[in-house]
């Protein structure tokens, strides 16, 4: 029962929550063996990355648009 989610699995779970779809199997694993603080920390990190990528995307679009 020490089927703890690895760092990689935690990351994938966070990304699935961003996407909005997660399999029941992974959800059960996360809720049974995971620690909330791991998900929160990786979640915050991913949210920051998301914002940065949006900013970069907008910059890039503006350069392409010639503004």
């Amino acid at each position, binding site marked *: 029962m020490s089927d703890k989610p690895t760092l990689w699995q935690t990351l994938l779970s966070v990304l699935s929550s961003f996407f909005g*779809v997660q399999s029941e199997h992974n959800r059960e694993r996360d809720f049974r063996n995971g620690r909330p603080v791991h998900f929160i920390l990786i979640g915050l990190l991913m949210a920051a990355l998301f914002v940065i990528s949006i900013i970069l995307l907008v910059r890039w*679009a503006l350069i392409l*648009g010639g503004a």
Partner: protein
Amino acid sequence: MVRTIITTIGSGLGLTLYSATAAAAWEVNLTPGVTDVSRSVFDLHMTIFWICVAIALVVFGVMFWSIFHHRKSRGAKAHNFHENTLVEVIWTIIPLAILVAMAVPATATLVQMYDSSEAELDIQVTGYQWKWRYDYLDHDLNFFSNLSTPREQITNEADKQEHYLLEVDRHLVVPVATKIRFLLTSNDVIHSWWVPALAVKKDAIPGFINEAWTVIDEPGIYRGQCAELCGKDHGFMPVVIEAVSQDDFQQWLADARAEKQSAAAAAERTWTLDELMQQGEQVYLRACAACHLPNGEGVPGAFPALKGSPIALGDVAGHIDIVLNGKSGTAMQAFRDQLSATELAAVITYERNAWGNSLGEAVSPVQIARLLEPSTGEAEQ
């Protein structure tokens, strides 16, 4: 079965194509407009419209086909399952891909719309309750543009003309083939300056300056409206743009400046009470009657009656003061920048001598002109 689907989709498409042509005839679609930007907005609108049509055909096609094919009389049995990650992923990815695909051309158009750099002509547009003021910033020219539809048409006492509620006393005259930047703001509440043919619709917000721009290809008259509910006469403050050739525009500028000078000269001569009353009535109906009503009786609780008003019948200095400087915090605006000295003198004279008010004295344009001299714009917020 495949053939059924194809005929279904085919006839559906035929129907929508037909209604699109019919729609053009009824003019219920967006206008393609007369500028580059308005045409790309129109194209974007049509692209997204057809994407929506295609999605609807696919989704409803599958749905109706499933309902028909798996009907109870054929012994269809529901397949009960709780979740399916693969299906959920697919139905999330497809809309995401469609949205991103639509965002690409939309972003291109937005970038174009927001690029107001390198304009050749700057015009400040200021919303007032309920009229627009236009300032040609580099040409020392400004004026108000008021609704010119006769009151009898509004109250159904006369037949309505073609441009009912879309006509003004002074057009916003602009040159064609020139990049014009509009700087939008407001003197009182939030308005929105909207001209469909230019695909320009921008909020005019007190204390803020918004930017919009246009390059008009074709000479012509383009009409629009205030698009942000702004009080009692929100529907009575249209926008009328007249696009003319560059030469005509220069000529118009010269004429407008000359007119301003002759108005200033007119203030210098002596006006009789009758002349002032005549002009005063016109000014009153144009600039004051929306609130104080044509009969001077006002709207109890909102706009005071001027008929029998202690101010209109009292000390002339107090009367002049409220008309020139307004009363801050109320709908009573400062008219010192909105009307010429002659118009101000005329309207004040009119108020003191109309509807049974009968002081019999005239306020002279020279007197007002002297009051206007020392400070300009002091009463503006």
